[in-house]
């Protein structure tokens, strides 16, 4: 047996140990994260109701019922509109705040601390707080509107204004998240590039558009990824303010699934809705990740 063979044997032995040592925990983790998921999918294929002892396999029956339920399409629309509005409002707003807080000033550190405060408020509490402020007769917001001579607004109490009102509360809570990420992004912009730009005569707008913004793209994609996934699953703010109403104006897929399960004990159908929600989350996140990878590749290719 040559020294080379012993080495190979040892490597093989160690490799096998490492192989099993890594595989077993990985399988445990995989199983424990996949099991509830698979169980959920399995339940979505049954007519399981919490109060009945029996359940039957009904294949795609729950999904078929959903397709023929107008409320499902309303909820799907609300879910997507909510996510789009969240991104469209919170990214520019977050970027604006981050740029403001990037300007050197004496009050900067004070504002940097206060801007994150809403993030520390539990969404349910924020929802209840804003619900009081948005109350049409006694709320402070309408009082302010009237003080400056504007007509009162219906906020959460009218189907035509409820969704945007909830989105505004979401913006109050979660825009600071975008601000923090963008501030970190701005700090990572190499000063020499900006200086070089200035030497070449670029104005502030050109520096923003041609240097800072391209540098921030991965951060923007990151914020979009987190906010989209979060807002598709948003439950606390909506439940604390409108519980999906008035009528069905703020009934998202998550609210609908929650009510199917907890108000009506229909676990099978609730799981089917959750599965649809998961699929949407998965597809949109995948799309955003692909976008990120594509632009990362482009960046390092240069």
């Amino acid at each position, binding site marked *: 047996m040559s020294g080379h063979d012993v080495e190979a044997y040892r490597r093989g032995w160690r490799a096998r140990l490492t192989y099993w040592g890594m595989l077993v925990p990985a399988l445990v983790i995989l199983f424990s994260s996949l099991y509830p998921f698979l169980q959920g999918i399995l339940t979505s294929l049954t007519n399981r109701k*919490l*109060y*009945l*002892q029996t359940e039957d396999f009904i294949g795609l029956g729950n999904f078929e019922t959903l397709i023929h339920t107008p409320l499902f399409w309303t909820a799907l629309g609300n879910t997507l509109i909510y996510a789009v509005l969240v991104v469209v409002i919170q990214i520019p707003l977050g970027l604006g705040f981050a740029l403001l807080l990037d300007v050197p000033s004496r009050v900067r550190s004070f504002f940097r601390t206060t801007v994150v405060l809403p993030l520390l408020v539990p969404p349910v509490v924020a929802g209840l707080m804003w619900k009081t402020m948005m*109350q*049409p*007769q*006694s709320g402070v917001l309408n009082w302010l509107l009237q003080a400056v001579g504007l007509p*009162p607004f*219906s*906020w*959460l*109490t*009218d*189907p035509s204004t409820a969704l945007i009102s909830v989105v505004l509360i979401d913006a109050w809570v979660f825009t600071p998240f975008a601000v923090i990420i963008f501030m970190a992004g701005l700090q990572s912009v190499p000063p020499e590039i900006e200086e070089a730009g200035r030497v070449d005569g670029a104005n502030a707008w050109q520096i923003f558009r041609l240097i800072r913004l391209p540098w921030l793209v991965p951060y923007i994609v990151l914020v979009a990824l987190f906010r989209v996934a979060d807002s598709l699953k948003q439950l606390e703010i909506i439940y604390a303010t*409108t*519980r*999906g*109403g*008035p*009528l*069905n104006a703020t009934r998202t897929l998550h609210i609908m699934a929650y009510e199917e399960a*907890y*108000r*009506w*004990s229909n676990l099978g159908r609730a799981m089917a809705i959750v599965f649809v929600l998961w699929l949407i989350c998965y597809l949109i996140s995948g799309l955003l990740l692909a976008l990120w990878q594509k632009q990362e590749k482009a960046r390092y290719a240069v």
Partner: protein
Amino acid sequence: MQRKHSRHTGHLARSTRLVGFAAVAAVGLSVANAAYAEIDWMQQSGSKINLLLISHPFVDSLKPLLPEFTAKTGIEVTFEELAEQPGFEKLLADLSSGTGTYDAFMTSPLNNWQYATAGWLEALDGFIDNPALTDAEAYDIGDFAPGILASGRWTREPMKGIGEGSLWGLPINFETYQLAYRPSILKELGLEVPQTYADLLAMAPKLKAEGPNGAIYGIITRFDKYWDLPYLTFGTMLQSYGVEMVDEEGNLQICSPESIAATTDFVELIRTASPEGAGAFTWDQAMQGFASGQYIISLDEANLFAPVYEDPSQSAISDDVGYAPTPLGPDGKRSAGAWVWSMSMNSASKNKDAAWLFLEWLTSKETMIKTHLGGNMNPVRASAWANPDVAALVESWGEHPGQYREVAEEMAKVAGVNFPPHPELTRMLDRWAEAIQQSYFDNGNVEENLCAAQADVARMLGN
């Protein structure tokens, strides 16, 4: 399928009225307050029971009494208190997992129709009939208002058999519905308390005033998209228009001409006399709104809100509030919904005898009176109404002495659970409420909305 299903129901199945309430109340304290001599209250000493309680003045009145129970029986009591929504969700999660975390819990007939179907409830008849556990004479089950007690009985057959079969829960209080009004403002406007819904509709445009804190609006009542709308508050108006969810032949009445008329009138009342945002009021907003003095009439709301209106620390109107029975329908009919808070026992409980001793003690004459004096309204036992201290408590409520009690007794005569028992009734009523809300928000006309809801409910019954 649905037709066939519900035709069996017949009329005897559906309603349990609170009749005999006033009559029984008059009988008074005739039965001796004998101590519980017959049974050994210490027989379960050393055991522990855990309760799920839903936030309610009843719970506040119960907490200080729990040490008395432990002293009497040696049974240790722990409890969790949660708000209604999370409380019922937690209960559902626990009951469906069969762990028996809660030995006994607060519930209502509406919830019990699902729990009993699932087999999660322990029938209580066996405990009541067991002389080792229950002193029948002292407990005196005949002292409960018969209709309220009967709402806890059910044969577990969908759409029928309420008031028959096993007893699944014991009542601890009940609410029905009434008008509350501001005497000073009505007088100022030269208006009388409305006797009929037609009166109310006619005066609706005039119901407005200016108060110290801005506009005072005409009418407030809850209006969220949930089952309590057709089941309790607006349900009271519906039933006075002659609408019951299922008629004597077993046909759904959700889009009957009477139902369309009641809904049309209700929507007009709210549009005329309620402010913007009325389409989203929940019961607590309705209660606080009226207590804050911003409204002239609280329409068909819970009479249980009266303690809040009468309490100067919670209400701006404690010296300016009156009560009246709900208005009469077009044919002079008055009917009303009822909400009965009950206590039930978990069939998965491991301490059933101890849990029963607790329920027996809690719903006994003595303890019930103590809870009423601590704010738990309205009494479900005749002996409690006849108790001078309980009577004195409500005597001052209203525009003149005794007004609250007169109205409560008048309403109790016509109040009842006039719905077919079904494990998924809340889902059907939620759908019905959606149609009423659609009509308010101008989504299609009343008839289309109600008939679409009826078609959906028929489909749910067909499942």
